[in-house]
């Protein structure tokens, strides 16, 4: 596959994009930002009535069992999957080539596989104030009971469409359009300034 360049690089002049501690970090770093750079980001969609076969296919390929329910998902660290719309799922893998692994499993009779690996940027926000910073961006409930680990949500910040998966008790992975990633990242940095953030 073509070698990908991060939309967050190069950043010679922009302080927010450099690794290190920023903002009000004298009182501790409460948010850590990083770009996870997964090798594969896929969107899978099932035809009406074929959803269960698609979910079984996700299990076959990734080993992830998706719980029932809207927005339900699962992650094992290297691979993640979550529902973001009726019959539609985002599946992510650290390794490249996930689309070809699905090609024989999700047949045209079951649904579609769309490779978005080059179209999305994955940003991870972690730390004790991650929920608090995200709550400034998105009008959804980030509390753990309402947004359990593994679950996904699709929403937007202004007009930047974002898919958010909770991958830990205080960790979220946000998938945004690649072309918006740089400005979205800077907005996240500005929002994290008052609690002290670290770029990894």
């Amino acid at each position: 596959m073509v070698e990908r360049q991060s939309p967050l690089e190069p950043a010679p002049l922009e302080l927010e994009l450099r690794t290190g501690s920023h903002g009000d970090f004298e009182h501790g770093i409460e948010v850590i930002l990083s770009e996870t750079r997964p090798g594969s980001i896929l969107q899978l969609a099932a035809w009406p009535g074929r959803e269960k076969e698609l979910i079984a296919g996700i299990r076959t390929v990734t080993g992830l069992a998706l719980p029932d329910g809207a927005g339900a998902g699962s992650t094992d660290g290297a691979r993640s999957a979550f529902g973001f719309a009726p019959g539609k799922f985002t599946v992510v893998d650290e390794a490249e080539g996930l689309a070809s692994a699905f090609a024989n499993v999700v047949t045209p009779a079951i649904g579609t596989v769309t490779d978005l690996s080059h179209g999305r940027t994955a940003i991870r926000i972690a730390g004790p104030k991650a929920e608090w910073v995200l709550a400034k961006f998105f009008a959804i409930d980030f509390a753990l009971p309402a947004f359990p680990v593994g679950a996904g949500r699709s929403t937007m910040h202004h007009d930047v469409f974002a898919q958010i998966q909770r991958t830990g008790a205080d960790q979220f992975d946000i998938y945004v359009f690649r072309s918006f990633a740089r400005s979205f990242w800077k907005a996240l940095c500005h929002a994290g300034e008052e609690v002290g953030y670290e770029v990894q």
Partner: protein
Amino acid sequence: MLITCPYCGPRDVIEFTYQGDGNRERPQPASQDLDAWNAYVYDRLNPAGDHNEIWQHSGGCRAHLRVVRNTLTHEISSVAFTRGDHKVAARHKAEGKL
């Protein structure tokens, strides 16, 4: 105004796009019934009360929704997916599309 998406739960109206009056019935594409086309394009009930509307959750799951909204109070009394809509499904069946 909050709309409770059947998939995503309650979300701010800013995430939704209004797709028009849900009472319209589109004539068949080949129809030459000008009165039916005129009614489809121009005639609106404009009720002061409950109104059938089509919305899309464009900033979320992107599903199209059939919403009943009170035009006086903005109270939303029902939200459902248009997917699986009985009226539309029946028409598609009659046309041999299903």
